[in-house]
């Protein structure tokens, strides 16, 4: 894989070209604790180039000291990648599905369809105020394993349905697509359940069927 290193503030992001192609790019966003390399094994039929991003603290991207992760920062990671590859269709797995969904709402003219698939970190954290525990040490990182703070903080990241439905509506109103979001997930945590009911969100569809639709828009 060819790899491009991109700067997101103090973090260096690794964006990998999984395979070249002609046409609109496809961007893979991995699950919590995964990497672009793991995501790259996903088999899809797509004519354009396929790219895969390592989120902050994962894979070949750099690891910031002291944590402070949020899904919004990872959404900005995805935006950095999109600026490099241009208008794209996005496939996200687990946590990456949530990020694909957010960036579809935040950059509706750049994201030509976001496909959400099951994977680690899909559910996220609370949807309301909860009893919290404060974790004071993330532990040590071994080799190139993901940043422990990423695993801790992004698995507790709040995803209230009122917040996520707003992003679904932004995607619909800003993209010009009839159905800018495709949910293929078998499981439906509250944020997924909430957006499944929104107009412009395809449900009961496979990954490849969704990609075939987005390839034609």
């Amino acid at each position, binding site marked *: 894989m060819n790899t491009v290193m991109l*700067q*997101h*503030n*103090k*973090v260096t992001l690794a964006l990998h070209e999984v395979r070249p192609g002609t046409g609109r790019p496809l961007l893979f966003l991995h699950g919590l604790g995964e990497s672009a390399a793991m995501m790259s094994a996903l088999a899809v039929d797509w004519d354009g180039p396929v790219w895969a991003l390592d989120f*902050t603290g994962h894979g070949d991207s750099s690891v*910031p*000291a*002291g*944590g*402070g*992760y*949020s*899904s*919004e*920062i990872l*959404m*900005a990671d995805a*935006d*950095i990648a999109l*600026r490099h590859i241009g208008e794209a269709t996005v496939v996200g797995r687990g946590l990456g599905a949530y990020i694909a969904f957010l960036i579809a*709402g*935040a*950059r509706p003219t750049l994201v030509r369809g976001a496909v959400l698939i099951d994977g680690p970190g899909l559910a996220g954290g609370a949807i*309301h*105020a909860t*009893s*919290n*525990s*404060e*974790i*004071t*040490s*993330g532990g040590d990182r071994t080799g190139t394993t993901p940043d422990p703070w990423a695993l801790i*903080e992004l698995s*507790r*990241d*709040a*995803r*209230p349905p009122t*917040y996520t439905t*707003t992003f679904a*509506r*932004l995607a619909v*109103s*800003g993209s010009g697509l009839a159905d800018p979001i495709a949910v293929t997930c078998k499981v439906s945590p509250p944020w997924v359940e909430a957006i499944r009911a929104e107009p412009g969100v395809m449900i009961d569809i496979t990954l490849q069927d969704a990609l075939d639709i987005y390839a034609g828009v």
Partner: protein
Amino acid sequence: MTPETRSYPGAERPTRSYRHNADGVDLAVYEWGAESNPPLFLVHGGSDFAGTFDVFAPLIAAAGYRVIAWDHRGHGDSEHAPLYGWDADIRDALSVMSATTNKAAPVIAHSKGGALMMQLADSCPYRISAMVNIDGMPSKRRMPDVPDHDQSRLLADSIGSWLDFRHEAAASERKPGTLVDLAQRRGKMNPRLSVEWLEYLVTIGAQQDADGWRWKLDPTMRFGGFGPWRPEWASLRMAALTMPFLGLLGTFDEPMGWGARPRDVLPWIPSSGRLEVLEDIGHFIHIEEPERVSKLILEFLS
């Protein structure tokens, strides 16, 4: 170059200052009062720094406390971190507190610091013996005159602007100016505070470079923003607190305040606490009336 200085009546720089490594993030910590005195923690608000306590902290220390405050990550003289987050700020606080004492201690926290400490008090009640929250009791924000579709547009603009900024964040820097320029800029956010105080703050919270003064606050941090966190969550945590609790609220809304009114906050005051409403005071209650507020707090703590 010898930096310009300012003095301010009653302001005292800390008795001691040192660095603390909070899981890889280098924090600046400050203390007023004798090291042998019982510890008490002061927690500043968003976009502020510990030096904003230079008048208030000595008044508390004079009552026999070892007063400890720190610059939050990205603020004042603490390190500009790669990432910022609510839980990370709480974790940093816990790290500073644990380095000082493993016993419960009183906490006085302002604005965002108050909301942070309410979460810490809820999750680690064994750390906080008494809690004073100075206008850090957020309530649900309302935009009653803005239709839903306009709110969505405002949100879309806000997200787009933030994402655009992230592309340039690595190269961003604060705008330089004279000491007076910086004080005037801050005056727009702190309209009730005196020019003399604001100029004094510049000499603590800003640095003088060859081309002028710049606030030390990490330029990648932005005021306001968006996110999943809901202000009312802090209210739910406040109601759950069991330690003695004193909430202070001014009646004058300011740009850096939370816009909470007494009737928004009162239903959530814990049964162990009370709310004091100070008329004709803004968001920076302890800066506007340090003598009155410190007296009120010391009576509560006693």
